[in-house]
């Protein structure tokens, strides 16, 4: 398992799906570990009842079917598929509505799905998913990207209420690829994946949605910022180490 995770740290992020399915076939007895530890680009299915697409993940899966957050039914149909309690389902519906507005403000398109389910210790788990195709043939408004995909997975474990406070534990993963292509500079492609955690103890007075929303917003901004400033920055630094910009070369060798 350690070796498998080692490989996933080195495989080009754009090949994550191929790598995961290769590992699953090589190590079938580790399949549940692999599926829970390796995040892969999000898939979607169409809810036949309301003609709207929803995002798939481990949290809305039961056997080989996935529950749609829109109609609360499984696709393909599944008898006795587990569904959240009425109370939690109400929160789930509300979360989907509000998160869709949040998503549209930051992503200018894309799609989102939120799933909730009760866990064993009196709390619940909420999973917020966002998928955006930012390519110029997709929903890239500015048309810069030949290819552009952003997948975000936020899983929040919400603890039981204690004296009007609740513990929230958020685990977020972002996977992205972006490729530009033009005559003068050829193809330029960056791809990556990051996973971070954050825990907070918050008053329930503001409501769960408000607390979870703020945590996700803060985390997404942090991840976007680290990708932009740190991770992309480090690859740029590497390029400049390989071939220092000409000003540096001139500085090192003053004109004789």
């Amino acid at each position: 398992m350690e070796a498998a995770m080692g490989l996933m740290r080195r495989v080009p992020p754009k090949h994550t799906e191929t790598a995961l399915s290769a590992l699953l076939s090589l190590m079938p007895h580790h399949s549940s570990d692999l599926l829970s530890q390796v995040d892969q680009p999000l898939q979607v299915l169409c809810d036949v009842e309301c003609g709207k697409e929803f995002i798939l993940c481990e949290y809305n899966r039961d056997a080989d079917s996935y529950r749609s957050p829109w109609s609360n039914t499984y696709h393909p149909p599944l008898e006795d598929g587990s569904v959240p309690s009425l109370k939690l389902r109400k929160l789930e519906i509300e979360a989907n509505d509000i998160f869709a507005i949040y998503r549209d403000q930051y992503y200018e398109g894309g799609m989102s799905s939120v799933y909730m389910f009760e866990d064993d210790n009196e709390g619940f788990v909420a999973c917020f998913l966002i998928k955006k195709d930012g390519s110029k043939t997709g929903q890239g408004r500015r048309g810069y990207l030949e290819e552009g995909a952003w997948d975000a997975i936020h899983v929040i474990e919400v603890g039981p209420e204690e004296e009007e406070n609740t513990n929230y534990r958020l685990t977020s993963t972002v996977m992205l690829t972006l490729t530009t292509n033009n005559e003068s500079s050829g193809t330029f492609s960056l791809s990556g994946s990051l996973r971070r955690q954050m825990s907070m103890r918050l008053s329930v007075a503001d409501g769960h949605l408000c607390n979870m929303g703020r945590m996700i917003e803060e985390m997404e901004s942090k991840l976007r910022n680290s990708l932009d400033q740190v991770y992309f920055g480090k690859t740029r630094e590497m390029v400049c180490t390989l071939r220092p910009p000409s000003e540096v070369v001139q500085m090192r060798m003053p004109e004789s």
Partner: protein
Amino acid sequence: MAEEEEESELSDKQKIEIAKWFLLNSPPGEIQYVAKDVKSILNNDDLYNEAASDAFPVYNKSHLISLQMPDRSGDVVVTSFGEVDGNAFLDPRTAQVAIVDHVKQVCKEVRPATDEELPSSFVEEFRCSLDAEILKYVEEAYPKGVCSVYCINGKDVEGPGSDFELAAVISAARHSPQNFCNGSWCSIWNILFKYDQQTVEVKGKLQVDAHYFEEGNVQLDTKHECKDATFLQAPEDCAHAISSIIRHQESEYFASLEASYLKLSDSTFKDLRRKLPVTRTLFPWHNTLQFSLTRDLSKELGIGK
């Protein structure tokens, strides 16, 4: 569940194919680390050795890795242009053939090249002048660069009247696993000397890769092709003109990479996710109750979507 159906055993051949895929997709300078993990997952030395002996030579050649020759006469570049046979590679500068161990990525020994392995003295004059010019440029532009120039077509041309082709390769690699960062710059220049047109055609393929993996996995890969031409002249003048073309094209390309990075945070990245919402303020989570009230209201009144 789906994964249970896949539990049917893979054939040895399929396992080798998967192992090769992982090895060939190793980032620059990381194939040995990948090999270690692949070996432990396969848990079968015979299968691993077969995969490694297939994958390493391909990886070494496509990444233009350079290996130190044992007699301290410099580095030999592992490239198909210099391939004499599977593990023997010509180093034209020293007129030696280096015997390499692909999997260990070392050069074991060298032997002098035979006359048949080297170009005619007429072609050699062009090759040698160009090698000297490019070497000068590479030492200046790449702190850890190596380069080599090969004759890849018409090496037996004895004098003016026939076409021949040289290939120049430039490779710079930087591995700093302690800083979680590796990268490589590879350029391949095909240089066709055309006697009838009295021209020299220059075609380049450039490729830059970088990997940063401290608590994450982010990779850059870029590819670019370009071409240019100059007049056929005396060997030294040709060498000078060709190396100026290469220098110019490579610095243009470097500038375009910098430009791509600059555009990234301002514009390109925005098409995936904005830094701030269209409203330029954080999302009003505390007002979300309003949103849902509005929704309920619109539902009751039968307005909205």
